[in-house]
């Protein structure tokens, strides 16, 4: 199969302007000295996305996500490297591009559809479906300036999806709609994906990335830091975000805390991948710090196979004694596996308090998965071990 999106060795540099006032006061805004410099938005990115794939792109602000999306739209070309996109692209980047507030919903559908590359008869054919999906039949002849932001997004999304693009690019926009609409959007996106539409989602909402994408790419300062499963991508993203906090703004300085060993054990100290409900389970991690760490604390999170958090706790209010530079310390996190049958993953991180309510990530233990054989006829997310008694009054 031929990739529907191909990036090879793509870099993008922008000319940056810095204006410095030449004179003081108000006049400084008029007389400026402009300093030009380059800044790199993307460097050496390779990426192939197959038809029908749904790719989640995550990264911190300024990591290059918007530049990547702009290239996939064809709006900006790489400084070096090559981008190839096959088929019709519909960007959902700020939905309703070209919507005019004074025009009615109906008129805007026609203009927007044309912008997305549809012919008039094509829009005629899809018009009813667009109105139906957006649930705006009683507002379709109202100027869109009277629409709420949710209605606006609904109409824009409906046009983009009904355009049956080969590549659909989705930005944060969906966050505007209410929950029910978001669910319908993702359902609809799944439908068109099954007909071969490639979908690229850029979001800071890890739940929507996890729920919808089957592949995740993490961008970090213009480079691909991770390309693989969504689960690993999200772990990588949090990892990067944490390192950043410890290392400081400029990415240098700070120290390093190294994970020496990590194991998930049963109550007899054996490594487990399989646990019986109710048995004590222990996560042991050993770290070595090459800098002194004040107020370290642990975080643990357990997720079930559906990606739901079953339990998580940050022990911010119970920090451990500090770690001296060069010291090796072991921590145990112990819990009863009171869970119904199923696959679970557990994550443990060591963080340090950096201020009131703020913390920095020191180490992330790799997520481990384990299977729990639950008690029969127990369902749900947790086994609360209810007691059932009969009292005679």
């Amino acid at each position, binding site marked *: 199969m031929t990739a529907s999106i191909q990036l090879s060795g793509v870099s993008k540099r922008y000319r940056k302007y810095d204006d410095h006032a030449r004179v003081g006061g108000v006049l400084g805004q008029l007389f400026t000295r402009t300093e030009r410099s380059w800044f790199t938005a993307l460097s050496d990115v390779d990426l192939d996305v197959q038809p029908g794939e749904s790719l989640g792109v995550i990264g911190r602000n300024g990591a290059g996500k918007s530049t990547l999306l*702009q290239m996939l*739209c064809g709006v900006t070309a*790489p400084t070096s*490297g090559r981008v*190839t996109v096959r088929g019709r692209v519909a960007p959902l980047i700020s939905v309703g591009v070209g919507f005019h507030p*004074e025009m009615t919903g109906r008129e805007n559908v026609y203009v927007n559809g044309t*912008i997305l590359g549809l012919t008039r008869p094509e829009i005629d054919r899809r018009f009813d479906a667009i109105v139906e999906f957006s649930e705006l039949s009683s507002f379709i002849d109202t100027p869109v300036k009277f629409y709420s932001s949710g209605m606006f997004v609904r109409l824009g999304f409906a046009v983009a999806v009904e355009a049956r693009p080969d590549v659909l690019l989705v930005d944060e926009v969906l966050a505007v709609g209410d929950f029910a609409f978001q669910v319908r959007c993702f359902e609809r996106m799944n439908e*068109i994906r099954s007909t071969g539409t490639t979908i690229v989602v850029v979001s800071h909402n890890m739940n929507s990335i996890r729920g919808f994408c089957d592949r995740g790419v993490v961008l970090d300062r213009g480079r691909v830091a991770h390309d693989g499963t969504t689960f690993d991508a999200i772990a990588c993203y949090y990892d990067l975000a944490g390192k950043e906090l410890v290392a400081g703004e400029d990415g240098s300085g700070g120290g390093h805390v190294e994970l020496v060993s990590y194991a998930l054990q049963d109550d007899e100290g054996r490594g487990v991948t399989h646990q019986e409900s109710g048995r004590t389970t222990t996560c042991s991690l050993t770290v070595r710090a090459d800098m002194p760490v004040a107020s370290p604390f642990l975080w643990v999170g357990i997720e079930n196979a559906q990606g739901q958090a079953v339990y998580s706790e940050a022990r911010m209010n119970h920090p451990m004694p500090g770690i001296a530079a060069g010291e090796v310390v072991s921590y145990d996190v112990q819990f009863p596996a009171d869970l119904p049958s199923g696959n679970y993953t557990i994550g443990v991180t060591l963080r340090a308090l950096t201020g009131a309510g703020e913390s920095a990530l020191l180490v992330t233990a790799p997520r481990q998965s384990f299977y729990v054989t639950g008690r029969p006829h127990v369902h749900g997310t947790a086994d609360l071990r209810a007691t059932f008694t009969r009292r005679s009054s």
Partner: protein
Amino acid sequence: MPTEETAPVAFTLSGPGTPLRELLRSLWSSRTLIGVLARKDFFVRYRRTRLGLVWAIALPLIQAVVLTVVFSNLVPGGRGSQADPHTPYSVFVFAGMVPWSFFSSAFLAGATAVVDGANLAQRIYFPRMVLPLVAVTTAIFPLVATLLVLLAMIVGLGPGLGLSTLWVLPGIALGVLLCLALSLVFSAAQVYLRDLRFAVSSGMTVLFYLTPVIYPVSRVPHELRLLVELLPAAGPVELFRRAVGSADAGLWRSVVASLVWIVVAGAAGLALHSKRDRVLADLL
């Protein structure tokens, strides 16, 4: 429609430009888009106004009335300055105002179209040339409206409709091409040199008096005549004059000059857009 077969390559980006052939091909497939956007821009302008489309005719009309009154009554020797005394002075002035107001509105909008269209241009790709083309196409709607007023004046005030009235057609064609060509160059250049917005609007004020819109070339001192005849908008203006039976002797010189402007500016504009098509949005 996504299908099992491989979709055709929509685009390949490997540098700042788009080869001219490819650019023209995608321009051709954007023709519906140009029409739809131009129609939208024109009609939306008059939404929620009481007088609506009247405004499209009112502005050049008021200007022509003011100029006619000023020049025929207040400026000595103003009346009767038209090349042919049988053409009423008001018709003479309005025949110049129709192509001029088209030229000035189309070119002013076209020259800034890429920068003004940033909102659209940064979010979705179409050849960036589409934006100046939309601006010029939008200006054709009021041109048609003012043309109808001119025809009414020709019938009512003289010299009356005739075969020569058809000269407005090449006049329109020349005016449209001229605006397209100039807008192409300026719309791309303005992205890099924002001063052009102000330079163009100041230039238009000067050109209005230099181009023989409200006076005939015959009233210009001999040594300056050639200069006036060779100005870009002189060709369409003179063809409109021909349509009301009051053309200057240098009509064809002006037409050829306009054609030269079209070819030079058009080639430069195409080259500029082709070279920078895929990076113009970066600086918006």
